[in-house]
């Protein structure tokens, strides 16, 4: 029983030794290994074409010099799982809800609407950290996120923004509820105002920084759209917040107006994305990410808009448009993550972009 096991061996895939045995058996039996060629588990990349090699010398000059290394991606795909896509969606809605709550309060809107919007901000602020921590490789070390303050790291800024938003959203709700239940403490209304104002400012940052977060990376399809992404995510959060308020029964002109505005802007953004075919934009137009992006964009934009235009008078029409927008908004976040993965697997988009940069720099140098 005294077998000493290498602690590292527990990290190795169990199938490894069996696989080697199978390959040795196949080699002994047939003199070659056909089933041995394979791909690593987590590097799904574009299918091989005639440029890929097939053993020593087998490319026989078919592999043009100066192309990529066997069509493998240059940059690494994002490791983020579904939690991050859902976080982008929930963070956007809760951030904008706090904005709607604060501005509604300032402009003396329906107090119930203000109360529900502020609560939506707080509930979102409680869900978001859970999603982020679940995605960490070492969840127990989540507090390390607040170990340093780095304005040059969008991830660090996001951690601080989310923490500040959570504090502000809690302060706003707690103070307002205390006032509502007749608790009279000095400065309570003022504290509520500070919480609401802080929640609105950090809410705007929370709903938009996620666009900066993926816009400031080495992934070509993300950083090429760094101007569009924050605006897109903010608009999506605005429409999503209005949609949830509608589903909660606030079929008011306010939510109608916000829904119209968000769907109109999303329609324009969707068209602008569709009209830019390029190697870098390929993940936005082809494959799983492309079709999800298209369908999500249609649901958030034109379809939600049309339902709103034709059925604006009926409650069912407004519920339908709200659900339509929410589905589109959430799936567009998944589509952006998937597009980033597809983009990382495409070396040609990266080379096209960077070689263009070199040509532009050379042209600039000649002009001087």
């Amino acid at each position: 029983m005294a077998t000493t096991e290498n602690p590292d061996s527990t990290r190795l895939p169990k199938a490894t030794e069996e696989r080697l045995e199978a390959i040795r058996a196949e080699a002994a039996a047939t003199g070659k290994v056909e089933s041995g060629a394979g791909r690593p588990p987590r590097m799904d990349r574009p299918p091989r074409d005639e440029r890929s090699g097939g053993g020593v010398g087998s490319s026989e000059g078919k592999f043009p010099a100066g192309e990529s290394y066997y069509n493998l991606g240059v940059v690494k795909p994002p490791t983020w799982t579904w939690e991050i896509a859902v976080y982008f969606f929930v963070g956007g809605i809760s951030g904008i809800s706090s904005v709607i709550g604060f501005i509604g309060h300032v402009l003396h809107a329906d107090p119930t609407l203000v109360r529900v919007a502020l609560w939506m901000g707080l509930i979102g602020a409680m869900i978001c950290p859970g999603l982020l921590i679940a995605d960490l490789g070492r969840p127990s070390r989540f507090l390390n996120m607040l170990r340093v303050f780095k304005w040059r790291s969008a991830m660090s800024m996001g951690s601080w923004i989310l923490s500040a938003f959570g504090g502000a959203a809690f302060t706003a709700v707690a103070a307002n509820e205390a006032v509502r239940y007749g608790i009279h403490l000095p400065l309570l209304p003022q504290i509520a105002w500070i919480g609401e104002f802080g929640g609105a400012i950090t809410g705007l940052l929370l709903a938009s920084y996620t666009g900066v977060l993926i816009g400031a990376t080495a992934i070509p399809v993300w950083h090429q759209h760094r101007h569009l992404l924050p605006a897109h995510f903010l608009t999506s959060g605005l429409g999503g917040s209005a949609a949830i308020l509608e589903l909660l029964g606030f079929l008011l002109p306010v939510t109608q107006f916000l829904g119209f505005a968000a769907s109109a802007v999303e329609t324009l953004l969707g068209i602008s994305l569709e009209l830019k075919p390029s190697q870098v934009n390929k993940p936005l137009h082809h494959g799983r990410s492309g079709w999800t992006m298209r369908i999500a964009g249609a649901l958030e934009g034109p379809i939600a808009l049309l339902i709103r235009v034709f059925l604006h008078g009926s409650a069912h029409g407004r519920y339908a448009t709200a659900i339509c927008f929410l589905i589109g908004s959430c799936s567009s976040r998944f589509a952006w993550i998937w597009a980033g993965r597809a983009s990382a697997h495409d070396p040609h988009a990266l080379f096209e972009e960077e070689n263009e940069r070199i040509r532009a720099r050379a042209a600039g140098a000649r002009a001087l």
Partner: protein
Amino acid sequence: MNKTSAFLTDATICIGCKACEVACKEWNEVPEDGLLWTGFSYDNTQALGASTWRHVMFLEQPATAGPQQVDMENPFRWIFLSDVCKHCVHSGCLEGCPTGAIVRTDVGSVLVQKDICNGCGYCVVSCPFGVVDKRHDDGRAFKCTFCYDRQSAGMMPACAKTCPTQSIKFGEREDLRAEGIARVQELKARGYADAQLYNPEETSVGGTHAMFVILGKPDAYNLPPAPEVPTVYLKSAWTSALLAAMVVIAVVCAAFLF
């Protein structure tokens, strides 16, 4: 001032023995990274990653591409190059790391401190070279440490120490840069017209602590021809965020007022 270490890896000297890959794994106790048969010449490693800190590439190019050919009956150009973390002068992973786990060491290298990394994965998408990655069973990000432990004890990194042809040179960065330039000139004089030094100094990366002498375009080695530190995109992205935020405030105000 401190010594600034660097690698100079030369594709015209490498014989593709992969001793650097093995030495790196042995010294750093890097776990297995997949036993796969790719059909990509002699390369079954494919790319750098969380458990691959040195990677020997095998390029097969048409004989028309230039000298360094094999197989006299059906000649083709065969090139080997040992890839490694670039230890950028301005490093994307270091800038992006939200925990401060990734630091610049006193020898100028970029190090992931494994007792601090919480596996957020932002360095993975921040590296313009696709070097650092998350080890999925461990959860943290890993990459070449530049054998910081060995360097601290006055030893050279394991890969350079073991390289039998001195294709991997280790030394002071300025010395190796000069050596690389001289080597390219020498190669050109000997008929290797497409020899060049890969050290992207004119981009925001500002050069690397791992330079390469290569034949042909960097694209063929999956080396990005003009890498940028992703922080250069921050200003325009935040500007867009702030403008859009102001529009959102205006729209919400309008919604309540109409």
